[in-house]
């Protein structure tokens, strides 16, 4: 992406029908440290890499509890993410207060998306520079959504955002079919494997990652460092490689998955998802 005469205002279209400011906002998401989400029928796991600015500082909080049944992982401008989390928390509290029941995840992401859209159509505002992976449970089951600065949102079986997320996405694309019926422990393990992919050889320890989970009968919470380190140790002792696919024989699987990969992001039930892109770069996540 290069500078051009149509990228100064968010309210200026380019002749090709693109809003460059919005696309630049999505670049900000790609620069943030990785965040990953995966779901099964009964659980949603959110995982993220915590990179501190320097050895002297603590790392930023990237996973927020929104309500007992919803959590969010962010990548990009964490300040924007914090503000949006506060908004989401308020919405959940108000909904609970009025209806004495938890806010359905699908409703929350629509409200979030509409809020993001406003910032793409006001000359005195700028788009939020943060991508949100919203994971939650409601009456219709476990859900994982991705909200981007453009105001679009998609539902996923598994997804990764932020820097070097493509490595994680490749891993997830290979394994996503097994997630639906995955056990809680295997789901967390898969999240850790995917997270490890983004580290490009750096050692995975519990001090540089955060794992959170929400599930049936389990309120959203973050796993403590000891538990996470224990899980990491388990699979590092057994062997470096993640377990082979049960769905199809590994060699065959690799070939067909590679063909599927460029088609679409690992999208599940299409009821909520908008069409993946308009053909050109713009909505490419």
């Amino acid at each position, binding site marked *: 992406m290069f500078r051009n005469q149509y990228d100064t205002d968010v309210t200026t279209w380019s002749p090709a029908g693109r809003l460059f400011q919005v696309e630049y906002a999505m670049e900000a998401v790609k620069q943030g440290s990785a965040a990953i989400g995966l779901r099964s029928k009964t659980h949603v796991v959110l995982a993220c890499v915590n990179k501190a600015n320097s050895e002297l500082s603590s790392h930023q909080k990237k996973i927020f*509890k929104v309500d007992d049944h919803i959590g969010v992982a962010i990548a990009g401008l964490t300040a924007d993410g914090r503000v949006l989390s506060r908004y989401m928390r308020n919405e959940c509290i108000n909904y609970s*207060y009025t209806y004495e029941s938890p806010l359905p995840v699908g409703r929350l992401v629509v409200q979030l998306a509409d809020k993001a859209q406003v910032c793409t159509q006001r000359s005195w505002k700028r788009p939020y520079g943060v991508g949100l992976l919203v994971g939650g449970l409601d009456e219709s089951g476990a859900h994982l959504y991705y909200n981007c600065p453009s105001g679009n949102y998609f539902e996923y079986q598994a997804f990764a955002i932020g820097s070097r997320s493509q490595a994680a996405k490749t891993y997830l694309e290979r394994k996503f079919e097994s997630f639906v019926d995955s056990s809680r422990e295997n789901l967390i393990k898969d999240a850790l494997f995917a997270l490890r992919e983004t580290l490009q050889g750096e050692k995975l320890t519990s001090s540089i990652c955060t794992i959170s989970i929400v599930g049936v009968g389990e309120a959203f919470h973050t796993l403590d460092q000891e538990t996470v380190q224990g899980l990491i140790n388990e699979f590092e002792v057994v062997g470096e490689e993640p377990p082979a696919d049960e769905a199809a024989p590994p060699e065959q699987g690799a070939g067909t998955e590679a063909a599927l990969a460029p088609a679409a992001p690992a999208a599940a039930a299409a009821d909520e998802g908008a069409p993946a892109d308009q053909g050109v770069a713009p909505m490419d996540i």
Partner: protein
Amino acid sequence: MTKQQANWSPYDNNGGTCVAIAGSDYCVIASDTRMSTGYSILTRDYSKIIQLADKSVMASSGFQADVRALQKVLSARHLLYQHQHNKQMSCPAMAQLLSNTLYYKRFFPYYSFNVLGGLDHEGKGCVYTYDAVGSYERVGYSSQGSGSTLITPFLDNQLKSPSPLLLPAKDAVTPLSETEAIDLVRTCFVSATERDIYTGDKLEIVVLNASGIRREYMELRKD
């Protein structure tokens, strides 16, 4: 031609009595479960007690619709507090929040007579007593509601040392043990039930101590 007076009131009194007693390492909060209107009983099984935080329990008598609205507001505020501060609200903090919330509606009050019980920062029992618009005070024991006029003098007599009527002020909490305090509460309600028509049916007792929270019930006269 006399001036027309409003014959509709936004308030109603659903009766009931609440009591709380603070001990050295526990707090007992109790109320009856009868809900009435006028001379009728609406239900014999309505709880006036709510746990707002892990160390704060509130019992309220008065107009139960306002009580319920107040409980919801406080619960929502507590959730917000937890999100912002990553911890539960302490009882003294909740006490101040309750006071502010009540005063916020100074010119259309919550018709709710509250007693807040819990454990303070040191783990000692604490009881806060309120009027309808938020005036509050930390005390060693308190009673509110239709039976309070019968129970308060009895508690003054039995608990002696933490009485706010003593000058100079003595203990902040009662030296009684937890079981003795619960027994005293039972006695209070049995007596109040005899004379107060709005108190009876069942007694709900909540006990807060270092090991957590516990609930007990006792039958009361149903007439």
